[in-house]
């Protein structure tokens, strides 16, 4: 019963503190929300884009043609060497015979009357990458293989892949920068809001000190205020992300685009952003109240 009474007292004090500086609190909450929206939004877009790129077989693939007359032993050793290259996910040997038969099956009109000796395909490898960023290094290593055909022996979407990942990286870095700056600003706003609350509640604080209230009872309402600022900001950021995804879905539906988006994971994002925002707000509050409360205890 005593514990419950203490909790209700501290919570009551927290809400009194929140009401004291409504406009400052509002500024702190909205800035936290915008910064977390940007940071989490970019993380979300980045992870979804990476997922999408991974799901597209051709985007991460390279086709390597080998010299005519390459022996089976040489093919085997080349495959082993490719598998050991950093950034390579897997390697598949495409025998020239199989490629020709497949082509003939797919294009009977073009290949009518041609026999095996007319096979235009060389022995090849299909190399799948695990990391787009390493495509250039892999290409260089492939070209150094003894069995590699120097005459157009490598086909891949190198430039397109590079551009896509570069743009994604630029967007991510920009969001990280703006989001980080805004997070810093929101930290300052939370800090100032708590400082102002401590100032506006100095009579209450001095009374609590005089009658011997414990340090936790005196400082917890201020820490909770900062935590609430951050957590509400996190919740707003999640709502914003959810709203943006819904808008995008509706626009896609409007244009009859057949590209259903995966549902936005509300619960994990809500939990994570509230926890991050709350922790950050609480930390800012601890910094803000430390000095004035220490000074007032003497």
């Amino acid at each position, binding site marked *: 019963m005593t514990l419950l009474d203490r909790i209700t007292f501290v919570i009551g004090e927290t809400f009194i503190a929140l009401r004291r500086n409504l406009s400052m609190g509002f500024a702190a909450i909205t800035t936290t929300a915008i910064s977390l929206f940007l940071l989490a939004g970019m993380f979300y877009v980045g992870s979804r884009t990476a997922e999408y790129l991974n799901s597209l077989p051709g985007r991460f693939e390279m086709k390597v043609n080998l010299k005519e007359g390459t022996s089976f032993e040489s093919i085997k050793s080349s495959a082993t060497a490719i598998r050991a290259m950093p950034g390579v996910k897997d390697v598949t040997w495409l025998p020239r015979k199989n490629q020709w038969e497949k082509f003939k099956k797919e294009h009977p009109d073009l290949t009518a009357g041609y026999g095996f000796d007319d096979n235009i395909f060389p022995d090849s490898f299909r190399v799948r990458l695990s990391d787009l960023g390493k495509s250039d290094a892999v290409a260089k290593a492939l070209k150094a293989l003894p069995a590699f055909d120097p005459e157009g022996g490598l086909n891949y979407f190198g430039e397109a892949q590079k551009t896509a990942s570069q743009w994604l990286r630029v967007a991510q870095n920009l969001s990280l920068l703006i989001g980080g700056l805004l997070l810093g600003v929101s930290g300052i706003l939370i800090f100032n809001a708590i400082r102002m609350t401590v100032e506006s509640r100095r009579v209450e604080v001095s*009374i*609590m000190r005089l009658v011997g209230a414990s340090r936790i009872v005196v400082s917890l309402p201020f820490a909770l205020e900062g935590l609430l600022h951050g957590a509400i900001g996190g919740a707003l950021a999640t709502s914003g992300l959810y709203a943006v995804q819904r808008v995008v879905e509706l626009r896609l539906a409007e244009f009859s685009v057949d590209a259903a988006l995966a549902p936005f994971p509300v619960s994990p994002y809500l939990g994570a952003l509230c926890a991050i925002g709350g922790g950050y707000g609480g930390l800012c509050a601890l910094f803000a109240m430390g000095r004035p409360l220490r000074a007032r205890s003497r």
Partner: protein
Amino acid sequence: MADLEKPYIRFEDAHVEYRNGLGGLRGVSLTFQRGEFAFLVGPTGAGKSTLLKLLTREVRLTSGQVWLQDLDVGKIRESGVAKLRRQMGIVPQDNALLPKKKVWENVAYAMRAVGHTRREVRQRVPEILDQVGIALRADALPEQLSGGEQQRVAIARALIANPPLLIADEPTGHLDPETSWEIMELLKKLNGRGTTILVASHDVSVVQRMGKRTIMMRDGKVEGDDVA
């Protein structure tokens, strides 16, 4: 028998130096017995408030010792200060009442802050207000009270833990002589119930009229100790 002779409060060569060099203490040694009523008098900057604040640990010693029973007050950790203050009642110089809370709420707030339940508050607040003679103004706001009534509320708040020691810093500082006397009578009544009372005051006429132990201070030193 030995316990009765042992001082309740003991200042041993207490020195306090403020950073600005004003109004500290310069080697004060004093003892107070349990149940005593004593006044600290002297001009502004004599060290009266500093001496009281050493006991409440609002000020720290530069050197010397302060004992409350067997407790070395100067050596208490910051985390233990709250517990120390729960053993005493403190009436500050400025009353420090919450202007938007009623009389009973001011007392209740202090009780809730130190962990009393709502039930305890409901039971104890009327008793305390009655004890200091302000029960009839329980629903008034501080601004609706006279200076003397406000002081009674501050005293009521200091009594929430039924403390054995009451420390009052200039409790009659801005009161007329008649109201000052009423406050002193109230303190005397509390002293009569066994509470040790230390009062810092520069109201010499009221102090003389009380006929209690009076310690004269000047420039951070004890100039005289007139035991009643």
